[in-house]
């Protein structure tokens, strides 16, 4: 937070976020993305981790409208 003391003028050039700071959060975000997209978009369709049809039926309308193949 070195910028806090500087009070930069409004026309300051954007300062990039260091990639080292982005990396761990990027891994976390990507994992979350894959898991969520799988459960919303594919679980109990082509493949199933949980038996039954409840997950599929619950997100049914969302799956259709968000563009995933549903059944």
């Amino acid at each position, binding site marked *: 937070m070195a910028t806090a003391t500087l009070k930069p003028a*409004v026309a300051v050039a954007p300062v990039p*976020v260091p990639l080292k700071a982005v990396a761990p959060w990027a891994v976390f*975000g990507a994992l979350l993305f894959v898991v969520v997209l799988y459960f919303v978009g594919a679980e109990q369709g*082509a493949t199933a981790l949980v038996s039954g049809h*409840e997950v599929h039926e619950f997100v049914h309308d969302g799956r*259709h*409208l968000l563009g995933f193949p549903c059944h």
Partner: protein
Amino acid sequence: MMMGRLLSRGMLAGVFAALLAFVFARVFGEPQVNLAIAYEAAQAALANEPPEPELISRGVQAGWGLLTATVLYGAAYGGVFAIVFSCVYGRFSRLCARPLALWLAVICCVVAVVVPGLKYPPNPPAVGDPETIGVRTAAYFIMLGLSFCSAMIGVVIARHFAPRLGYWNANVLGVLLYGVLIAGLSALLPDVSEVPADFPAQVLWHFRESALGMQLVLWAALGLVYGALAERVLEPARA
């Protein structure tokens, strides 16, 4: 901790955008889903098939189910959007937070929704053979992955040629490369043609319109809201 704040704001903006998209889908999408289900039921009755048992009521599917799916989808894309934004901001682009967020939302919507949707458009219930769900799901996610990868290659090439060609020409080259790559790669994927012959064209069209509209609402709101939130984190003097 700045990155944590950027990511959490991305997911928050995604949830908010998803709430707006839910309202849109509820108003414009659900009537088409219901028409498609009515067609499906009529076809089953004609074939003397017993009606499918309702595991989860239509009311729950169109309400809490749709809301949950949309909010999870919004939060997931909001998070990824924040990560892409954090990599691009000040590094690949000199734009300030708000215009950059809106531009990125446009690009992400094209790469993640519009282009995959041109190959495999959203389908209402009653369209699609349950026997082929495995192939269609695989093809859809491969298309999504190819679109992401082609966009990544476009960015890398644009970055590489920027010093030699200038920013404008290099960016045009990057977009062109993305278009050529994804057009060529998607032609290799199988075509799906499973709309029943007598399925009402009007319902199919309106359903796809509302599915696209829902995504436009989601990405527009995500870009606008995230820009304002990221500005407070990155450019406190401006906010």
